[in-house]
């Protein structure tokens, strides 16, 4: 996993190497300072040698300035490397998502993809920054300080060696017990957020059913749970600081006592006051870096989940692959389903399309009708290969859709999805999704066909009117007509409308259909609708029921032969009376 993610460093590799190198230099200088200080105190101050003090002082100041430069440099490199790495990773992930099939998108859900591209990347960036700087700094500091301390006085430095495992074990116990507790806290928080979110979304339901107290109870229960879990987790953390103090005070006392004895007994030959001072400084350096190291460890563990989620997204293989020698031309708009089966789960159980076997001629208009959940949409989505068949095959222009170059196929098959989206931008920009080189005249022509031209002209800025995200500033019927115009601009061989005129009034609906018949007679048209009136003049109508073709024929034939069709027809024309 790490290797795969690290592949995104690319041009920032140099920065990612410089950062730890600089930090090592900084640490070495920082560790050297107490050593020099000991000399300054012992040979300078103690002996009253002013010249020595100045010489050593200059050296020390130089060391500090250098260390400052390296420290700042390393921080800068780390910032460049980590933000660059995050940008690359985000880019790689986003580009990967562009390759996804519908199935891949359904599997992750849009919300989860968004979180992975935003929150998770941020966590990874933070962790990466820690790893190349702090995670390097601490162990180096630890070892360097130990070495320097042992050079000052080997026996006394053993005191640290004794204190270190003590502190490490203590921190280890806290972390080991703390991590699962914090994970529980995270989950409890997620649950609380969910309760609030659902409450906000359903606030009208809550109020309509007078369930405020019920909701408060639900919230309190979760809130209490967080209090309990969080207190438990933090109580453990409360031992962090005292533990650190025990170690550092303990070291200080022991070193001071033993050190003072050595100084006195040896008459300042084996050790000096200055060295005692620097030993105490080293003890702080050793213990602090150990403490920091434990923090880094925890941070990295926490971000592991994010890294895993990013990795999952990067390694997901698109379920729809380009063929090896793709066909790059779609001959005509004929469509043929041959014993087609499909299930979202990919297994033979719970098939949502069962043995579909239909052949549609180029230029034919076919209506599709059926109840909620009869898999009408799934059926038509097989044509531009948004999903692949489980068994059987789908042929467009006489060629299996799996043999086409995907872009060729999708440019020939234009589809207006049921849940259609407009994007923030002008109407023109949105329309040009269909054909980016379309002239203004072509745009207008398509809009006239889709009965959108008139209302566009009534808007204050006409074709340059800004559409808000999700197309919230036009009505449902207007949005649907814009989407149809956008699809027409592709000049497709096959046009699929998936319940795309449901918000358009019946009159306009019929005008659009007439325009289709007259202006694009050679385009195959598949129209899914709830309203019988939208399909009754089609060449043929498919009646879907629970993933099967229940009936196929013209309006008149179906009225005679299909019970389902007749019932739907009656419920829409005179269904009122018998229910009264």
């Amino acid at each position: 996993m790490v290797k795969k993610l690290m592949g995104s460093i690319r041009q920032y590799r140099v920065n990612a190497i410089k950062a730890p190198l600089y930090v090592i230099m900084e640490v070495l200088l920082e560790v050297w300072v107490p050593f020099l200080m000991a000399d300054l105190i012992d040979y300078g101050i103690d002996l009253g040698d002013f010249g020595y003090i100045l010489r050593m002082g200059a050296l020390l100041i130089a060391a500090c300035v250098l260390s400052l430069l390296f420290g700042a440099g390393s921080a800068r490199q780390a910032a460049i490397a980590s933000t660059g790495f995050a940008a690359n990773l985000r880019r790689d992930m986003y580009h990967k998502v562009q390759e996804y099939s519908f199935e891949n998108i359904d599997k992750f859900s849009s919300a989860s993809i968004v979180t992975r591209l935003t929150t998770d990347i941020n966590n990874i960036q933070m962790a990466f920054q820690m790893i190349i700087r702090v995670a390097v700094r601490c162990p180096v500091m630890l070892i360097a300080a130990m070495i320097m301390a042992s050079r000052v006085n080997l026996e006394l430095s053993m005191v640290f060696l004794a204190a270190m495992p003590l502190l490490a074990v203590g921190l280890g116990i806290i972390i080991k017990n703390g991590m699962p507790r914090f994970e529980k806290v995270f989950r409890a928080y997620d649950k609380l957020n969910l309760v609030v979110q659902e409450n906000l979304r359903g606030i009208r339901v809550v109020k309509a059913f007078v369930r405020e107290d019920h909701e408060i109870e639900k919230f309190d229960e979760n809130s209490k749970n967080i209090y309990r879990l969080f207190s438990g987790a933090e109580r453990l953390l409360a031992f962090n600081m005292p533990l650190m103090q025990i170690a550092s005070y303990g070291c200080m006392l022991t070193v001071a006592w033993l050190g003072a004895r050595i100084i006195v007994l040896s008459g300042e030959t084996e050790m000096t006051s200055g060295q005692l001072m620097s030993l105490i400084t080293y003890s702080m350096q050793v213990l602090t870096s150990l403490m920091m190291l434990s923090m880094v460890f925890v941070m990295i563990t926490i971000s592991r989940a994010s890294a895993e989620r990013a990795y999952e997204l990067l390694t997901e293989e698109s379920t729809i692959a380009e063929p090896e020698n793709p066909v790059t031309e779609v001959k005509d708009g004929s469509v043929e389903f041959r014993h087609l089966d499909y299930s979202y789960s990919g297994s033979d159980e719970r098939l949502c399309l069962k043995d579909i076997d239909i052949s549609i001629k180029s230029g034919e208009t076919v209506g599709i009708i059926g109840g909620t959940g009869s898999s009408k949409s799934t059926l038509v989505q097989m044509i531009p290969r948004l999903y692949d068949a489980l068994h059987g095959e789908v042929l467009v222009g006489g060629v299996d859709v799996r043999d086409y170059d995907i872009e060729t196929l999708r440019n020939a098959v234009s589809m207006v999805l049921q849940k259609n989206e407009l994007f923030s931008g002008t109407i023109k920009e949105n329309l040009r999704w269909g054909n980016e080189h379309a002239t203004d005249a072509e745009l207008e022509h398509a809009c006239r066909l889709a009965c959108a031209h008139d209302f566009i002209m009534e808007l204050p800025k006409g074709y340059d009117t800004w559409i808000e995200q999700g197309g919230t500033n036009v009505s449902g019927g207007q949005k649907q007509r814009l989407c149809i115009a956008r699809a027409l601009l592709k000049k497709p061989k096959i046009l699929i409308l998936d319940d795309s005129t449901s918000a358009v009034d019946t009159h306009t609906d019929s005008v659009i259909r007439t325009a289709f018949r007259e202006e694009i007679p050679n385009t195959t048209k598949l129209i899914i609708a709830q309203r019988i009136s939208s399909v009754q003049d089609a060449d043929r109508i498919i009646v879907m029921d629970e993933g099967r073709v229940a009936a196929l024929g013209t309006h008149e034939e179906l009225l005679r032969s299909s019970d389902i069709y007749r019932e739907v027809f009656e419920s829409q024309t005179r269904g009122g009376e018998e229910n009264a």
Partner: protein
Amino acid sequence: MPNPTMGGRGARTAPPDRKLDMGATKRLLRYIMRYKFRFAAVVLCIIASSLVNVSSSIFIKTLIDDYVKPLLLESDPDFSGMLGLVTGMGCVFAVGIICSLTYNLIMVYISQGVLKDIRDEMFEHMQRLPLRYFDSHTHGDLMSRYTNDTDTLRQMISQSIPNIIISVITIVSVFCTMLYLNIWLTMFVVVFVLIMMRTVKVLGGRSGRYFIGQQRSLGALNGYIEEMVNGQKVVKVFCHEEKAKEAFDKLNEELRVNASSANSIALTMMPILANLGNLQYVLIAVIGGGLACAGVPGITLGTVSAFLQLSRSFSMPISQVSQQMNAVIMAMAGAARIFELLDEPVEGDEGKVTLVDVEKHADGSITETAHKTGHWAWKELQPDGAARYTELRGDVRLNSVDFAYVEGKPVLHDVTLYAKPGQKLAFVGATGAGKTTITNLINRFYDISDGTITYDGIDIKRIAKSDLRRSLGIVLQDVSLFTGTVMDNIRYGRLDATDEECIAAAKLANAHGFISMLPQGYDTVLEGDGSGLSQGQRQLLSIARVAVADPPVMILDEATSSIDTRTEAIVQKGMDSLMSGRTVFVIAHRLSTVRNSNAIMVLEHGRIIERGDHEQLIAQRGKYYQLYTGAFELE
């Protein structure tokens, strides 16, 4: 272990205002003061533990000057005095450690307790707010008070407050000690610290600018990602992938540049401060050493080494305080947002009339009972204490009702209508004509500006809101489901309904069929607002939910809009039998849904322009006729 950020999804976009909100601070202190004895203990312990920390610097000085130096001169050194000092110091340290453990532990309870208090109060208060409030605030905005705002508050209480107290105590005591040791060296330290603070300020100011840039481009990129990923299927259908990548790359690079500058400055702050601290340390050694060499009175080796230790304990807390202050300002801005919510006035309810179950007797008289009978009555207490009962019949009248969501922009004009008991009343009209608004007024989601609404002859303002709403079963346009089993979701309509009653309701709503097909049937857990279900299935569930409530009056607001017409006819049959003899309001876009109503009101721009039953309206050849024949577009 660091305290992880809870639920901090998405970065705060507004840069912190660089001023401390005093009002919010005082209010927050009141919450903390609920734990005043514990908090006092915390403060005492913090003071003790900081003093112990400072005394460790004096300890080394005393050790060297008073023990090591004199002992060096003796031929037969006696260590008993020194042992005494060390053990004494050991005791002091022990006290310090115990104090710091104590305050850390108590602080956990205070911070978590305060947080829980605030959280619970906030949610409880929110439940009592009128719908208007929710209309004018986005979910994201409200959610962030439970996540980001409380989280920064937690960090502030548990970390910033103790840190600031420690820092202040340390600064004061160290400063005094330094003054006591040597005034000139102290002056030097103060000057140096001022330089450090200046550096922090300059760098901080610059990083602030870059951070605003970073937040802005982060917001832009996140917005783009959200829009494109949600419309990913359209992107695929139009083979728009390359374009989508191009625009993304541009925004991504912009963010990288900004983030890189912002982080560079923020990250370099720490090493610069730390190394300036080192520099100060060295300079003191050189200057102090020089002075000691020159034989300036009062400066000994011990003094210099004590000073070296002290200077560290002085500069560190000062840079800490300046950093913590930022956290405090941020947290207080969040607290202000929380208190703003707590200060919102709650939904008023001056109604006294309540709804009770009653037993109907043969002679037409009614008596109150505790069990469900299918009959209800309005109960009003007379001034003399006697109760007066009015049978609930479902007679709803609107008299010349005017209403505006926003002052000056009326939505309903002079709406008058009667729903006689047992009638089915329908509203038809374009989006924004005011159909849903009328139903929102009947259950008092909003209060009318002018006119009256009566329910069985009682002004609805006199009816207790909760009882009024209990008497009205509503199926709303947007179905909201809650995380839980299908059964739980149906039972939301009546919490004490048995499983059998829920299943019966589901059958009535024609939902039983698809529920049985779910992996665990009625025990299937719905998540994310029932995202696994189709819109039509969700509508069937929400109808079952209201069916189990078995209300005396029902409002169906586009309740069947996503259900195919064939299923709708079946559902309607079931609903009609459930509601026979009871009043029903229906709002629908699809005219086939409303055709069998007793009366249909056609609304346009907040006025009723036509009314009558289906045949009458068709005969009128007005708007309804045009709609019916498809000459007009609804929406």
